[in-house]
C-alpha cells in the first residue's frame, strides 16, 4: 500500500499551494490593487506634468536633478511582503494549526519549503508585474536611460519586499513572544539595509550581498519550526 503511494509526488506541492492560496488570495488581491492604484496615479501625474509644464522643463529637471517618479512605491513592496507572510502564517500559529500542517504525510522540510515557495512565487509574479508596468510606462514617455534610472531606484525596495516576507515568516512561526521580539529587532536592522536613501543605482555593488542574505534567510523559518516542534 505505502509502496504505491509516493510521498514525493509534485501534486502534493500543488495541494499545499491550494491551502496557501485560500489563505492569501484576498491579501494578494488587495496588494495588487494597491500597486495598480499607485502606479496608475503616478502615470497620470507624469503625463499631466508633461502636458502642463512642457516636456522641456520636465526632462531638464529629470536629467539635471535625477528626479524619480516611484517614491510612493518604496515601502509598498515591504508591506506586501509583510502582509503576505502574516496572512499565510498567522492562521497556522493560531491554535497551533501548524501541528496539523506538519502532520501531513510529507517530509516536514518539504511542507515548509512549499509554503515559503508559494509566497516567494506570489511575490515574484506581483513584483514582476510592477517592474514590467514601470518599464513599459516610463518607456512610453522617456528614453531608456530614464526608464533604467527609475528601475534602478525600485530594485532594492523590491528585494526588500522579498526579504520582508521571509523575515516576517520567521518571526510569525517563532513560538515564543520574547524571542519573536528579538527576531523582530534583528529583522528591522536587516530590512533597513534595503531602504537607505541613495541615488538610483547606488545599490549596484551591495545588491549581490543582500540577495545572498535573502537566500540564506530562507533557513531562518526552519529554526522557528524546530523551536515550534520542541515546544519552546
Amino acid at each position: 500500500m505505502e509502496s504505491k503511494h509516493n510521498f514525493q509526488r509534485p501534486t502534493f506541492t500543488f495541494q499545499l499551494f491550494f491551502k496557501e492560496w485560500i489563505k492569501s488570495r484576498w491579501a494578494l488581491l488587495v496588494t495588487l490593487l494597491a500597486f495598480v492604484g499607485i502606479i496608475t496615479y503616478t502615470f497620470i501625474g507624469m503625463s499631466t506634468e508633461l502636458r502642463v509644464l512642457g516636456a522641456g522643463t520636465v526632462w531638464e529637471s529629470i536629467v539635471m536633478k535625477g528626479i524619480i517618479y516611484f517614491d510612493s512605491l518604496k515601502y509598498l513592496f515591504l508591506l506586501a511582503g509583510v502582509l503576505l507572510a502574516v496572512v499565510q502564517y498567522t492562521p497556522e500559529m493560531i491554535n497551533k494549526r501548524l501541528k496539523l500542517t506538519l502532520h501531513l504525510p510529507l517530509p516536514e522540510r518539504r511542507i515548509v519549503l512549499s509554503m515559503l515557495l508559494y509566497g516567494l512565487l506570489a511575490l515574484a509574479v506581483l513584483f514582476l508585474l510592477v517592474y514590467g508596468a514601470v518599464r513599459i510606462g516610463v518607456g512610453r514617455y522617456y528614453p531608456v536611460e530614464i526608464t533604467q534610472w527609475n528601475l534602478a531606484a525600485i530594485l532594492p525596495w523590491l528585494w526588500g519586499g522579498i526579504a520582508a516576507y521571509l523575515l516576517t515568516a520567521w518571526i510569525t512561526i517563532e513560538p515564543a513572544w520574547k524571542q519573536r521580539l528579538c527576531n523582530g529587532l534583528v529583522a528591522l536592522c536587516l530590512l533597513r539595509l534595503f531602504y537607505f536613501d541613495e541615488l538610483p543605482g547606488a545599490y549596484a555593488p551591495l545588491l549581490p550581498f543582500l540577495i545572498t542574505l535573502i537566500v540564506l534567510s530562507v533557513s531562518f523559518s526552519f529554526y522557528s519550526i524546530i523551536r515550534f516542534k520542541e515546544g519552546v
Partner: protein
Amino acid sequence: MDKIITCENITHYYGSRLIYENLNFEVPRGKILGLLGKNGTGKTTIINILNGYLKPRAGECRLFGERMERLSPQTKARVGLLIEGHIQHSYFNVVQIERFYGRFFPRWKKDAYYELLKKLQVSPTQKISTMSCGQRSQVALGLLFAQDPELMILDDFSMGLDPGYRRLFVEYLKEFASAEGKTVFLTSHIIQDMELLIDDCIILDYGSILLHRPTREILDTFHRFRFRTVRPPAAGTHGLLRNTEKTGALWETYSFLSPDDVVRELRAQGADPEDLTQERLSLEDAFIGLTGKY
C-alpha cells in the same frame, strides 16, 4: 502483541516545575486507551510529546516504532490527529478541506466524510470558521474517519460539545475502533463518555502514573466503602485505602481490597468500623476515589 505506542522514561519539566519523572507506558494494537487525570497533570503534554510537538527533558516515545519527532510520511499517514478544541484549517469550506486532505492519504474514504456531514445543517460552501463548535467537531471527526488511520490520537474530544454531539462522537468512534486493528489514544475531561468507550485506562497523578489497567478491571474491583466508626482512621490516602474521609455521619474510603481486608486495614489504622457497605462505582466515581476531589 504489536506495540503501537511506547513511551520510555519520559521526564519533563515546565521551567522548574516537574510534570512527570520516568513515565513509561505502552499501547498495544487494537486497544482504546483513555488518559485520565486532573487539570494540570499533563494530559495534553503527553499528547504533544507523542505527536512530536514537545521535546521532553529526557526519554523518548515511539509510534509504530519510529521516534516521535522524526515520523516518516508513511507513518504520519497512519496516525490521525485531533487537536484540543477540534482545531482544523478553518479558512477552508466543507468541500475545500475534503479536497485538500483527500489527495494526501492513500486510503482516503471520501464517503465516510460526507456521510457524517449529512447530519449537519451546513452548506458545502460554508467556511469552517463560521460553524459552531459541535459542527466543527464533526468536520474534524469526518476528516479523521476519511483518513482511516490505524492510530488515532484525540486530545480532549469532548471539549465544548453538548451531550448530543458528545454521544454522536463516542458512537462513531466506537464503531471505528471496532474495525480490525484500530488503536485509539484519547483524553477527555468528561469521564462519563469514556466508560462506554475505553478498554484501558491510564490515570495520571501529579508527577507520575497512578494506575494503568483495563477499565473493566477497575470497575469490577475498585469500590467505595461506607462505615461508622467512633475512633477515626487516618484521613486521606494511607496504605491500600484511598481518600478516606468523613462525609456527614458516615465515613467513606475507596479500595481495591475485599470488604474483609478493608475492615482489617481500618482496624490497623486504629478505627473500629461498623456497618461496612460496599458500592460499585461508575468510572467517574472511581476516578474521584482514586485521585481525590481536589
